[in-house]
């Protein structure tokens, strides 16, 4: 188990499985095979029934379960302490985490505590004789950067950038329970008021109509909302119009907003800056409406309309409703 490639999960996604589990385990399996070590999955906190079947399908050797009352809510200090206990015992060579909101804090802290290198925003990892090379995005996706890490590493993986692929032969994962006592761990950050999810989430929307500065004025954001409603989808936004208060930040798409993967994404009056595009390039179909035929967004779009979005949006709403 020493030097193993480990997928560390500490959340429960929609279907009970941790976010990105299949994608990150696929990457982990390839790396483990290249290095001739096991792929292990360490699950922190309450474990879903779905884990065992997924682990087998993806070729996991061991399911290492760590539980403790302190992990009930998966708060950061407890999670970091648990990762630390695990790494001390198992000395994995590489710890992979799906880059969720919480992982952005947990991964570097866990790395520091374990003396490991850390890289976030990973879209690929290759093995080398003396470590790994991680490919990560930089400048909001404008560039890609390769980082060499010698020695143990913790890597935050952008699961949306990977494809899941079952193992050629399913494995028979062995379940191990790893003892951990987190009674002494204190959450130093107190939650005064929990975040409450109101209504549907942009990350899960199938259809998104997003607007940007090309809408000219705050009141025109309504045109985006109208088309979104007509299509049964949700409204998104670029950052500048969120900053200017045309809509609230729950609608912001991009590097520092929501990473979406809808079936259809319609971008109106959005230039296509890399920091926006990382939030919507996973869309199956991308439509851009922009009055500038040279706008960057047309490089990403499958369909383009060169025109004034203030005219085109209402016509689209009419066309959708008309049939």
């Amino acid at each position, binding site marked *: 188990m020493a030097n193993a490639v480990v997928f560390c999960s500490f959340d429960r996604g929609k279907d009970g499985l941790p976010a990105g589990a299949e994608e990150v385990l696929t990457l982990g399996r390839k790396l483990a095979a290249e290095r001739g070590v096991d792929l292990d999955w360490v699950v922190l906190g309450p474990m879903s029934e779905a884990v065992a079947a997924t682990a087998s399908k993806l070729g996991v050797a061991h399911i290492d379960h760590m539980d403790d009352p302190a992990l009930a809510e998966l708060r950061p200090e407890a999670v970091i302490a648990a990762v630390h206990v695990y790494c001390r015992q198992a000395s994995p060579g590489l710890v992979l985490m799906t880059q969720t*909101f919480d992982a*952005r804090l947990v991964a570097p802290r866990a790395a520091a505590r374990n003396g490991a290198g*850390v*890289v976030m925003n990973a879209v690929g990892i290759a093995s080398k004789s003396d470590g790994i090379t991680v490919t990560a995005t930089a400048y909001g996706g404008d*560039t890609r950067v390769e980082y*060499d890490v010698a020695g143990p590493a913790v890597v935050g993986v952008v699961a949306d950038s990977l494809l899941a692929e079952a193992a050629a032969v399913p494995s028979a994962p062995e379940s191990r329970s790893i003892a951990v006592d987190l009674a002494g761990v204190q959450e130093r950050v107190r939650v005064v008021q929990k975040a409450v999810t109101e209504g549907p989430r942009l990350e899960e929307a199938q259809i998104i109509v997003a607007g940007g500065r090309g809408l000219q004025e705050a009141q025109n954001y309504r045109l985006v909302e109208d088309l979104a409603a007509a299509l049964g989808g949700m409204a998104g936004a670029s950052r500048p119009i969120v*900053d200017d208060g045309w809509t609230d930040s729950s609608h912001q798409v991009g590097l*520092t907003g929501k990473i979406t993967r809808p079936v259809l994404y319609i971008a109106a009056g959005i230039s296509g800056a890399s920091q926006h595009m990382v939030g919507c390039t996973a869309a199956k179909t991308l439509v851009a409406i922009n009055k500038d035929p040279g706008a960057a967004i047309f490089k990403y*779009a499958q369909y383009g309309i060169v025109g004034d979005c203030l005219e085109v949006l209402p*016509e689209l709403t009419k066309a959708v409703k008309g049939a």
Partner: protein
Amino acid sequence: MRIIICVKEVLDPDAVDNYVLHGKLEIGADGKTLTQTSIPRLMNAYDEQAIEAALRLRDAGAECVVDVVCIAADPTAILRHAAAMGADEITTVPVDAASLDGHAVARILAAYVKSKGGADLILCGRQASDDDQGVVPALLGELLDLPVITIARSVTLEGGAVRVVRVTPNGDEVVEATLPAIVTISNELGTPRYPTTMRTMKARRLNPEQAPLAALGLGESDVAPLVRMTRQYVSSVQGNCRFIDGATAADQAAALIGELRSQRVL
């Protein structure tokens, strides 16, 4: 109280984006450094907002020293901007940041904080707009054994604690930690103040305090990176857009919806 704000010097991300868009981003012979000297060097925008957050605390009555530190070869211009905004102290740790990784940056910042006898509040940006890593504040938290609160929309002080509204994927969350603590600032904080002409003039003559590694008790081996950047390249974008023609907006709209329906996207 002392508020230390850690600021990074970055290449203007909009200029980088523009060069990429026009296929003109130049990468140096080392295969990783962006070499266009025409790209302005700026303070990372989130870090400017972190300074703004500190100044708002002072405006709200907190008695504090606003102390801005930057690790870079010569970030005089951006530190003068910090002073013009209202920072009381500006300091450079003169090291080429490109040779460091997050761990080394955090180790230097930790040594700096200690050299000042500690800080009550440390503010960072949520991430640097060049590497987008967002790891330094968390690493610093481990080194100084402090709570770290990420992605703040607003920061207030309540007695001996800091209260933060965090922007989370599920909506805003309100959290609190006893000082000292580290908080990372997000763009939701709002636009940083623009320095007055008078302050800008005054800051023009200021030279940042120098805190070389040796003065912080650090040697070369303390800042040896675990993570080394070896290569940087422009990611390719496919670009096979089908333009929908039409004499009027109504024609274009009808053609697009028709196409999306026939492709079963709708």
